[in-house]
């Protein structure tokens, strides 16, 4: 059975490209540009992993991570955060506790490797 990955990024190009990368690697992808839909999409699709951009425009990705990880029903879902900012690496030690962190611009093989490692 294909593993389902939820991808949240406000940049349409990145969203489309990441979706293509993951689909080519055999994942089922659910994606959204709107961070505010994260909770409902998690509840609806029960993804096996979540790929979450830090800067989402209308909402802070770290806050969304915190929501997922602080909810007992979803806390088990691995969350990988993506950001162009090096400073965002410190989020791993912050309140949101993601499972991994990927810096932009990422290597697509590395991205897939990190997702598979957490599944």
């Amino acid at each position: 059975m294909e593993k389902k990955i939820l991808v949240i990024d406000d940049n349409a190009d990145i969203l489309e490209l990441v979706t293509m990368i993951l689909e080519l690697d055999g994942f089922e992808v659910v994606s959204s540009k709107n961070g505010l839909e994260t909770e409902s999409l998690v509840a609806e699709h029960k993804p096996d992993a979540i790929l979450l951009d830090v800067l989402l425009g209308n909402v802070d990705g770290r806050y969304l991570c915190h929501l997922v990880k602080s909810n007992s029903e979803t806390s088990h879902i691995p969350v990988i955060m993506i950001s162009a900012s090096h400073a965002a690496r410190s989020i791993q030690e912050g309140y949101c506790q993601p499972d991994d962190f990927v810096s932009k611009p990422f290597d697509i093989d590395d991205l897939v490797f990190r997702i598979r490692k957490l599944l």
Partner: protein
Amino acid sequence: MEKSKEHIALEQAFSQLKAELEEANDVIHAIRTGEIDALVVKGSEGHQLFTLKSADHTYRIFIEQMSEGALTLDKFDNILYSNSQFAKLLGIPLEKVIGMNFSALVTHEDRSFAMEVVGGAWDVDTRAELRLENYVGEKISVQISLKALELDEGKSLSVILTDLTALKKSQSQLEIQNKELEIARQIAEELNSNLEATVKARTQELESNIRDKVRVEEVLRSNEQRLTSILHTMGEGLCILDTIGQVTFANPRAQKIFALSAEEILLRDYFTLQSECFSLDGSTLQREQHPIYIMSVNQKPVYDHEIMIRNHKDESVYISINASPLYDGEIFIGVVMTFTDVTNRRKIAFQKDEFISVASHEIKTPLTSLKASMQLLTRVMETNLGSEKIPMLIQKANSNLAKVVHLADDLMNVSKIQHGPLPLNLEETNMASLVISCAEQILNHTPVKLVIEGEMELSVLVDQQRIEQVLVNLFNNALKYASESKIIKVIISQGEKFAKVSVQDFGAGIPPEKLAHLFDRYYQVDPQGKQVSGLGLGLYISHEIIQRHGGELTVESTFDFGSTFSFTVPTRNNL
């Protein structure tokens, strides 16, 4: 033995002579003492009466008693008469003086002169000075007054001699005293002259010192005024602290930075000047961490020590402190502290840090798409899976590459603006065509429609590329910040020398407090808490471009009802 007749005759003759000698001596004594006025002498011609006509009794006593020597000389210069005073003068018994030749009593040196004087005196009364010689060979200066006398018994010369020894001695002493007096006078004169010169020199010196002092006082007063003026107008705050850190002086700038009055500030020490102190990392600064405390402990100056304070108006101010101990000789007497409000510098540093972070993020975003597109293209070409996606991947690679180039251009433009005015290549262009061309470029793949109104034929004199840059930026901003707006309306109108182009959106509008900063470098409006992409350079660059054209870029916005950005550019009438 009986005496012979001859013997007896000789004894009788001797006795007679003895008697005659005693008689003669008595006579002489009687004459000298004035006891007799005349003598009867028995000669060859019988008895003759010799009367002492010119020397009556009183006169002879007077001559004998006078202090001068008195002589009478005959024509052979023999002394016929001498008073006792003359004999005493020479230290020779009076009886021996009588009958001596006067010249024998004169010194060898003066003798011929004496003879001339005496010789001449027979004809005319004479007075002269010469020297006698006493019996021990001592020289005695005398003044002689000579006068010829006609007496019954013939001519004789009276000589009065005044002993000048005492006079000469007095004269000599007087001369010595005069010389000494002269020397003393000269010394006194010299001293006086020196004194005058010294007084004059001292007076001049004093006057010069007074002038110098006055000049120095003027310079000091002038310097003090200048210093006071500097202290009152300088951009840096300055406080003088005593040895326990209490403020003893604070200039107006210091009072302003700490928000304390001139009286209030003097009641404080360096730590209570502000209500709170913080390190640059935001942590509260303890007294022991304050740069003045550190300087006082180490007794070494501190330079550019930056801290953040909360002043007494509850404002946060970053200050850079320089402090140095003050010494009087080797005694520590306090601290001079200068400080600069570096809030703006710190703000700019924050802005730069923020900008670098934003620029890095903004460049990485299209680079991520570009890199992913290229890697996917490689994979598709290797595996032949998803080959239908190739055009989409190429398009994404190109558009993201264009975004990177656009960002690089923005950075280059900012750099150019900072280093001088942007060069313009002015040409006549139809404004409406420029608007339409840019709108197509930006709005084509969006649901937003362009509505253009006004002077469609209006020609403007602009750098076409730069004005396109402005229009693209305004359209992009409208899409980014007014995404809910369905149309973008452009109105072109003509002024006397300028064309006005207004770009209107119907989005959320811009909060009034943010309008003032809209054209600042790095400034980004963050409407309704949204995080938006971009470097915050677009409007700054656009503003510079329009200013370079001699026009203005302005904004009007009504919150919740949209914004209108307008710019003016020269028409051909402006030529």
